[in-house]
């Protein structure tokens, strides 16, 4: 088995990874987090509530645009890996969200999901709702990529 050079490994990474798409994703998470935090403040004026509700929208639009650009830049092998990963992760994500919705229906909003890293449930429990699908996609992408490419 031949070892790939460091330069090739970096070239592979540069082809797969696009900083702006990655940043856009985290900006969306940040916007949702801040908006969620603000909307929980008691006594928030209706106008301010509306503004905080709308703030994540431009971020989502930007992230979608960056993802489209990123997708177009990928070669067909990586598009295939992405498509196969999505085939697996979307049903899992929908299943996960349906399960959360079921919990919410059974126990009312907000669902007291234990917060990550030992944080209290009322503070950051919903972060898991966002992070689990993200984590699912990342893990599936790595597994599908390894299976298709032999990780070389």
């Amino acid at each position, binding site marked *: 088995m031949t070892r*790939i050079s460091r330069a*090739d490994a970096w070239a*592979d990474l540069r*082809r797969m990874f696009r900083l702006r798409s990655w940043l856009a994703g985290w900006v969306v998470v940040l916007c949702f987090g801040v908006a969620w935090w603000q909307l929980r403040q008691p006594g928030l004026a209706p106008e301010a509530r509306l503004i905080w509700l709308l703030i994540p929208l431009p971020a989502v639009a930007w992230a979608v645009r960056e993802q489209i650009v990123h997708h177009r830049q990928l*070669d067909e*092998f990586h598009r295939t890996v992405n498509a196969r990963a999505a085939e697996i992760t979307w049903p899992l994500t929908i299943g996960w969200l349906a399960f959360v919705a079921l919990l919410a229906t059974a126990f009312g909003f907000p669902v007291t999901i234990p917060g990550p890293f030992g944080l209290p449930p009322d503070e950051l429990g919903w972060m898991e709702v966002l992070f689990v699908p993200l984590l699912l996609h990342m893990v599936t992408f790595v597994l599908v990529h390894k*299976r*298709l*490419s*032999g990780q070389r």
Partner: protein
Amino acid sequence: MTNRVQELRLARGWTQARLAEELDVSRQTIYAIESGRFDPSLPLAFRIARCFGLAIEEVFMPG
């Protein structure tokens, strides 16, 4: 589908990275094609054949 991509590439003394550059794809694509884990699309298969100066059926064979 089987292919002769690795054989043809090595005959020219090219690395996977060099062939990937010629075809404007990632080196991982070349590795995946050579190892038979990934079947390229028809346009890419034609580009690969053209790159080696051969007909598509001389590079890709039904497995």
